[in-house]
């Protein structure tokens, strides 16, 4: 797994330059709590070089809005909607309520302080 550091501003450009639908396979989006920041990760695999897994990651504050990659990767909306509910982060153009009931306290995967 090769990890590529990126930032909120360059995220769309980096993934847009990297991702080609006929070459790369978008697997999933993930988020891990690191201290008081959240590490958001995007995992891609490669059709041609099978053992390669590329992971773009960025460290953000929990209240920061993350840009959506829906217009680059068409199927990313499922992963984004899930993270919004489970990790209580903000993603551009994504509503709460896809995974959990709308009245549920969001962010069950975050550590209780």
């Amino acid at each position, binding site marked *: 797994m090769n990890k590529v550091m990126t930032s909120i501003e360059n995220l769309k450009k980096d993934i847009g330059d990297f991702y080609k639908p006929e070459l790369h396979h978008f697997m999933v989006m993930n988020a891990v709590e690191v201290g008081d920041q959240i590490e958001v990760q995007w995992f891609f695999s490669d059709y041609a070089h099978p053992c390669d897994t590329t992971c773009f990651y960025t460290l953000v504050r929990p209240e920061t809005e993350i840009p959506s990659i829906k217009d680059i990767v068409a199927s990313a909306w499922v992963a984004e909607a899930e993270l919004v509910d489970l990790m209580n982060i903000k993603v551009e153009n994504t509503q709460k309520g896809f995974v959990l*009931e709308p009245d*549920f306290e969001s962010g*069950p995967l975050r550590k209780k302080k």
Partner: protein
Amino acid sequence: MNLASYRKKSPWILHYNAGGCNGCDIEILACLGPKYDIERFGMINTGNPKQSDILLVTGPVTKRSRERLVEIYAQMPEPKVVVSCGACACTGGVFRGMYNCEGGVDQYIPVDVYVCGCGTRPEQIIDGVVQALGILEQKTKAMEVSVRLQKEPLKEEGQINRRNIADQIKPALS
């Protein structure tokens, strides 16, 4: 023969997965298949709650499926029997205490037969359903008595058929 005796010979089952792992569901499907062949008791799987007598529920009740479960139970006509299949439907099992789960089916609807095991074996499911047949017969008789004595059917049951009542039912049962 009247309707009650037909019901005894041919109970129809309804299956609902309230958030389980599919393991018990495929065993219920295996029961419908040729090896275990639940149809020799006259049972067939029906998709319509309004025609069914026995409700097979699997899974710990998740928050999103609980209102559907109560709705399905309310739509079934009296007399009805509920069989909870699997450890997680009986008590919550390994999922007990997870944030989106309730501990078992009996938190919301009255359960008559508990079938244990993770996952339940088809023999156990058949055993449970055959026990449910006996309970169904008792319930049918009890209903007939009430009609004969009181000249009107029971009114306490069969009235929970509104949405958003899952929250009201839980304190009433506990």
